[in-house]
């Protein structure tokens, strides 16, 4: 297969776009497309201070790379979850983030959950019923709280994450299967800061397939953690991705159309009148972050319960 732009041997074929590109043109195409998505969705401007949540994985490091190449001022935030599982998962993840930051002379903020809150994520999981049932839910809750706090305290204009189209389509698939109206209403490439203390959030890679972000990281020579998070084994999100890839195999573009048409439908008001009103947000008495709870937010309750 040949590159559509220059006729050289293609490195990747994107069946949903009927587009094959060589290494050089692919490495140009991804940042150009990202810039287009940033502008189309008014995510941020070159004057904004951006905080990129980096995990050491392919998506977030690719995102950091793309944004800095596009000239944005982007610092990294790594959250040390304290997951070891016999092969030092968190230590390895931190290593890749630090290496990327050092090699590119970028600023990386590191928050270690145990140092900051007294327990690692596996310890929080052990100490709470919620964590025993759903370790990823506790991890997600903790990361959201910490990311927002660091972005708010550091006066960043926007917090960006490396969510790709497969991530978004899998979440949409799960929310649709369960008809979770309030979650459907909130899902999108930009989450506005619609309450004091909440930082604006954006997902600049939301239209790229996971295959494409992986290809970008590989072709750019970005070193990332290839091992899957040990707690993610059997996670529903992975199962949904596999199901969607089965559909994609037979009908290229299915995942993309599923998600983009959802966004269009939402913009057109399809869900607005049917979904219940969400409760007004309060301010957490402990950390000062917005919460639907009248006193403490779910994360602070979790930390308090796990403190001996």
């Amino acid at each position, binding site marked *: 297969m040949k590159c559509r732009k220059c006729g050289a041997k293609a*490195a990747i074929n994107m069946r949903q776009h009927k587009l094959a590109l060589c290494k050089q043109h692919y490495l140009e195409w991804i940042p150009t497309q990202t810039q287009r998505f940033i502008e189309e969705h008014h995510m941020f401007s070159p004057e904004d201070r951006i905080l990129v949540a980096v995990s050491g994985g392919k998506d977030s490091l690719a995102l950091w790379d793309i944004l800095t190449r596009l000239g944005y001022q982007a610092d990294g935030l790594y959250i040390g979850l304290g997951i070891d599982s016999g092969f030092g998962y968190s230590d390895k993840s931190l290593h890749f983030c630090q290496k990327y930051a050092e090699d590119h002379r970028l600023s990386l903020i590191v928050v270690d959950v145990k140092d900051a809150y007294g327990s690692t994520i596996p310890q929080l999981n052990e100490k709470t019923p919620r964590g025993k049932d759903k370790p990823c839910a506790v991890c997600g809750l903790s990361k959201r709280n910490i990311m927002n706090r660091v972005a708010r305290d550091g006066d960043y204009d926007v917090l960006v994450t490396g969510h790709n189209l497969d991530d978004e389509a899998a979440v949409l698939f799960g929310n649709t299967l369960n008809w979770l109206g309030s979650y459907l209403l909130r899902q999108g490439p930009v989450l506005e800061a619609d309450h004091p203390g909440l930082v604006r959030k954006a997902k600049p890679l939301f239209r790229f397939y996971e*295959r494409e972000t992986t*290809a970008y990281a590989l072709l750019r020579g970005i070193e990332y953690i290839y091992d899957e998070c040990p707690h993610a084994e059997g996670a529903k999100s992975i199962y949904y991705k596999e199901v969607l890839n089965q559909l994609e195999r037979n009908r290229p573009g299915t995942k993309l159309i599923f998600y983009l048409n959802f966004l269009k439908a939402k913009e057109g008001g399809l869900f607005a009148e049917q979904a219940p009103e969400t409760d007004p947000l309060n301010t957490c008495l402990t950390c000062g972050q917005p919460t639907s709870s009248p006193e403490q937010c779910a994360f602070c309750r979790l930390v308090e319960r796990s403190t001996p």
Partner: protein
Amino acid sequence: MGTSMTAKLILRKEEFEVKSGMTVRSALEKLEIVPESVIATRQGDLITDDELIEEGDVITLISVISGG
């Protein structure tokens, strides 16, 4: 007993022996690996799935799915 017309596909810790002469996509389908879930590489270079697998090839598949 192995034949001389074989190649190897590697996915994480698993190794699969496939016949040379077929495309990467056909080999993946035969092994029931969803092509959308991996990227095929040969000697460190990314290859598209219409590439023919040649005698003695070692194709490393990079899993693209992550989550949790």
